[in-house]
């Protein structure tokens, strides 16, 4: 049986661009990936809490304002605080400033797929991240 993957999509802060999420949600479901999208205007604390409740293994952050570094820093902090940093991986997409990418990767945040990326590329990336996490755990 294929590995169960559950993604919580996190739209943290006040960014309103969520067309991409609308389209991705369908693609995730079609690929057999479970999705929870609690809507816009969330906080890092809320997203991590929802991920715990949903027993998710992926948090997918989306932002189009250029503030991904601030957002992801808080999410990763929160995961560490709750002792979930090894059971939930974080990916990020939308618009991620080039200069922030190395800093984000250092924190373990990957992906950075933007506008026009085929959903299959994003799904592959998520599967690989989960597989890598499993490999470390076993």
């Amino acid at each position: 049986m294929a590995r169960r993957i559950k993604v919580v999509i996190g739209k943290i802060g006040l960014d309103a661009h969520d067309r991409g999420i609308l389209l991705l949600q369908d693609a995730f479901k079609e690929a057999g990936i479970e999705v929870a999208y609690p809507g816009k205007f969330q906080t890092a604390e809320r997203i991590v809490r929802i991920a715990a409740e949903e027993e998710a293994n992926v948090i997918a952050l989306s932002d189009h304002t250029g503030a991904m570094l601030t957002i992801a820093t808080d999410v990763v902090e929160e995961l560490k605080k709750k002792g979930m940093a090894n059971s939930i991986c974080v990916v990020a997409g939308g618009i991620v400033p080039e200069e922030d990418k190395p800093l984000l990767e250092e924190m373990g945040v990957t992906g950075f797929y933007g506008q026009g990326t085929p959903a299959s590329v994003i799904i592959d990336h998520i599967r690989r991240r989960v597989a890598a996490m499993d490999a470390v755990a076993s």
Partner: protein
Amino acid sequence: MVEQVDYNRDLGHLPTDETESGIRVKVVYTPSDIAGVDYIRDIANPGNEPFTRGIYPEMYRARRWLDAFVICYTNTKETNETFKRCVASGLTGLRYVTDTPSASGLDPDHPLAKYSLGTGGVSGYALNSYEQMFDGLPLENVDYEGGNVSPAGTTFNYIFLVAMMERKGLDISKLRGSILNDPIHSFMVLNTREFPVELARKINADIIEFSIINTPKFHPEVPSGYDLRETGVTMIQELAFCVANATQYCQDVIEGRGLKFDDFPRQAISTGGTMDFFENICKFRALRRVWTRVAQEKLGATAERAKTCLIAMEVCASICPSQKPVNNIVRQALVMLSAILGGVQSVNPTGFAEYYGLPSEENRIVELDTSHIITHEARVPLVVDPLGGSYYVEWLTSEIERQVNQLLKEIDKRGGMWKCLESGWLQEEMDRAAIEKERNRTTGKDTVVGVNAYQGPDGPLSKAVIEDAYRLRSTEERFKAIEEVKRLRATRNTKRVKACLTELYKVAKERKNVIRPLIEASKLYATVGEMVGTLRLAHGYSYDPYEAIQVPEFLKELS
């Protein structure tokens, strides 16, 4: 029947027979396609009903379109300086935007503001930031175009302008410009929470009523098609939703406040500009024709001016992909040209590297130069509506008008846009269109150079364009607003602010027009968060739209 041929891009064919919005077109148009079009009834000379060819007899020779480009950076000083230099290079309208927290009715120290501080514009949490942003710029008889689109954003785009003028002892009746006060579209595209529907609807009418009486040259209600279009709706939906929204707002004021539509300022409608060249041109021509009919049938327009609408065109950022962005300079020039051929009154291009950051100062100067090259070198505006009478242009104009009218009928049948919003029908229609558009893009049905065709690496020119985009400032710099607002609260006259907010609460509770008390509170540096919170309390909602903070100590008595 025309024989079906599989056209192939790689063999030099144009493999589509549809316009961008899916209108099927023939290879050529002839007189028989416009046999039903009557020149006097359907086209007419410019300045004559139904204004297909333009709203003024002389159009651009007498009055060029406004070059009203958004300038919005993280700090007020750089925004102010760029405004001044762009005005010196020919900017004729000042379009300003404040950051997402202030536009969402939140102060910089709100827990949710942290992630979006300084994104998309200056932190416009109180009058002081407007005073800095427009320092040294003339306020009377200059066009100020508020660029925010959320209910609190548009409200304070107006309130702070008036408050700033009054503090300087200027005549507010000389305020010119507009705000994108279009709450139905805000709920459709943003859904920020500061004003629930009932409250947003009331404030929308308050602004229109106050502005008609006190700032008669200002356009207090402009439906915004740009944002709708960017969510993926078709051009037909864009026009119909804009017209239907404007109709609802005007009806609210005519019925609820006893004003006559002939006394309103000329209706302005803001639209999105996309790539299909002729579809753009015809959509502006069709929009004027649709509005003329609606203004008379629905709003009782009798004055000539009331039957016309001003059209603003903002280039959709989504037409500027991240791949090979040097091409976006060409794309913008084409869209600007089509808008001008369509007879618009204001043009606002987007950034060449919008994906990477906000338009830089040189980006803006190049766009101003483009506008001047179109005018003075290419002499495009020399003759009014030069494409009028073209078989294709007249046919497509009529076809767009027909489809828009059909959708307007459907909206009417459903009880108007407020009802369509409430029932969820609008959301369904929008989502369907968005998914269809994305499918056309990913399947390659819509060709986008550099994205799904003719791909290639970014060369030095494209790299320079990317490098030049304005990057979001450091967290440290963006977070300065948190200290600023705390300092402001500690240094202003709290007693007087409290008295003003208490008055605002009282007026709001009595359901009277809240614009005057909002202006008075703003003049004493009440913050956006405090004013929004006070209005919410008076309408029976929690102080904080996101229920993350408590009512501040000095306002405790209100709740």
